[in-house]
């Protein structure tokens, strides 16, 4: 295998959820509606979007925690949707997930040490004698006092619990971790610690991350590449620095300009979007963003023809008829 090969490759992924009963198949909510991307080894791909854009569903589909309707998910060249359940369980060692709600991600009746040890035992990665020392080493690696291994999750602070969850995810020496809003529930002063920890772990262990977040500052800080989602589709995929300085899609531009910046002197061109994201069940026929689009040139083409995600500059994709004339922020 060459090193340039993608670690995770997702092709035309679709997932919908039923609203009521087996009869109304047409009324299903298309949470993820044809998404294609890949993540290279050692890279951090950010997935941004507002609530209901389908970003968390993608994370769960990749780990096969929910089964997609169609599409292909390849991990290190293996189509994971075709794997049998025992092969899948073995592959799970290499891919892990960290959720927003850290305390809820730990079994309330299991001590922290036991929780960190469990995956090691399941995958038989160490002998009985080594397990304990491995667990303590993991706690040390994520900056937790070994004393805490005897505590129950509810006795930890949010930051400590998230560190424990990260230690648990690392215990199986994974290659790939889905980070689903890993710092959103933490106190501001603790968010920075966890972000720094994730960054240093990535360097030390050559990890590949898929970071799902609604907080664009976190995404800018952490990611190499970013995909922006709107109504179950990607509207823009780009390297981080270009995306944040000169976004191609008007939605990205509006999203960026809406983030309040902790600097009162900074005067920016604010693009305030009208209305709200339409519900996923009544998707417009043309460009999904048409109803809210602030672009001055939007026209009938936009309302009738959904734009394709096309490459406009090397490594920069956008789904907009006017991507060549982006809004300035």
């Amino acid at each position, binding site marked *: 295998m060459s090193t340039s090969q993608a670690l995770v490759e997702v092709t035309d992924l679709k997932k919908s959820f039923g609203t009521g009963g087996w009869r109304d198949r047409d009324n299903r909510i298309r949470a993820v509606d044809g998404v294609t991307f890949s993540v290279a080894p050692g890279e951090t791909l950010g997935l941004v979007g507002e609530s209901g854009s389908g970003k968390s569903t993608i994370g769960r589909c990749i780990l096969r925690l929910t089964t997609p309707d169609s599409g292909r998910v390849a991990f290190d060249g293996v189509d994971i949707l075709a794997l049998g359940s025992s092969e899948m369980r073995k592959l799970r060692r290499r891919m892990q997930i960290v959720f927003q709600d850290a305390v809820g991600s730990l079994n309330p009746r299991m001590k922290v040490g036991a929780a960190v040890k469990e995956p090691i035992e399941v995958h038989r990665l160490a002998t009985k004698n080594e397990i304990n020392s491995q667990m303590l080493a993991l706690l040390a690696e994520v900056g937790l006092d070994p004393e805490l291994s005897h505590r129950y999750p509810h006795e930890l602070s949010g930051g400590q619990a998230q560190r424990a969850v990260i230690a648990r995810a690392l215990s199986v020496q994974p290659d790939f971790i889905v980070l689903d809003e890993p710092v959103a529930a933490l106190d501001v002063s603790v*968010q920075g610690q966890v972000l720094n920890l994730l960054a240093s772990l990535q360097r030390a262990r050559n990890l590949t991350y898929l970071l799902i977040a609604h907080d664009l500052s976190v995404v800018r800080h952490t990611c190499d590449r970013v995909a922006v989602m709107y109504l179950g589709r990607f509207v823009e995929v780009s390297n981080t620095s270009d995306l944040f300085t000169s976004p191609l899609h008007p939605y990205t531009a509006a999203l960026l300009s809406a983030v309040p910046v902790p600097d009162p002197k900074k005067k920016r061109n*604010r693009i305030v979007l009208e209305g709200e994201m339409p519900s996923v069940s009544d998707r417009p026929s043309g460009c999904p963003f048409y109803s809210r689009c602030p672009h001055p040139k939007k026209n009938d083409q936009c309302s009738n023809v959904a734009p394709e995600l096309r490459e406009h500059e090397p490594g920069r994709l956008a789904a907009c008829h006017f991507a060549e004339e982006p809004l300035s922020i």
Partner: protein
Amino acid sequence: MTATPILQVHNLSVAFETPRGVVHAVDDVSFDVARGETLGIVGESGCGKTVTALSLLKLIPQPPGRISQESRVLFDGVDVLSLEGEALRKIRGARVAMIFQDPVASLNPVLTIGEQIAETIRAHKPVSRAEAREQAILLLDRVGIPDPAHRYRSYPHQMSGGMLQRVMIAIALSCTPDVLVADEPTTALDVTIQAQILDLLRGIQDEYGMSLILITHDLGVIAEIADRVIVMYAGQVVEEAATETIFSQPAHPYTRGLIDSVPRVDQPQYQITAIPGSVPPASNWPSGCRFHPRCPYAWDRCETEPQLERSGSSSAVRCWLAVDTDKATE
């Protein structure tokens, strides 16, 4: 700016009796709010900012809560904390209104949103049903709800979080209050909706000439909207300053740490300096300066508790560095 402030808080201390002992949630907090001003209160979970907000309207359940004897909340010269019954009701909602983080929980699910606005209007003003309804529709229009006459008959579950927060603002505006207290009003919302709500708050504030107390953990929101900022940590005010000053020259190490620890959307990647440790629980504040276990500048003097030192009319810091200028220059 010689006019008396609309709201003055003096030495507010609130404690809660819990099975595990007394929790001092808010400790000796004082501040003023001028007419038409936007005051930001920033702090992390458990710093006492929400308890402070609730105390302003005597909304702390007592017991288990206990507001100390020395505490004063002077609204237009009247001590709210000494009021009872009808007199208190006349201030609540009518002259000081509140909105919260979770609009879904603040609205009654079995009444239409219009009825809930009209109900508030009729609770404070002698108007007929029809008039109240008309005023409610005007308010819905003012807070940017499309097709207000139709939406009047909607139930809370039929509306999105952003729309419901607009409804909460409409209820708060229904009696044209002098002070609006907003406790994390945009935390549960998406950024594009947050931008809309902040715009709306700014707009109605100009229009009505209200004072706004905005409580948040988000420094970006503060920078965007506040005139003056109070930073709270572990139940105390640690710094107070004009918004520009707080961001350009933060005086308290905690404020500085907070600003440095958030990643910025407007700046390329850099190593953020996180504050070590975690927020102490309210049941167990550290002794001395409450921030000193996490403070990079702490020295032996920090074992004793610093006072909030005022400098000028609108700045104050609770830190030995501000007192001991020799040490500060080191």
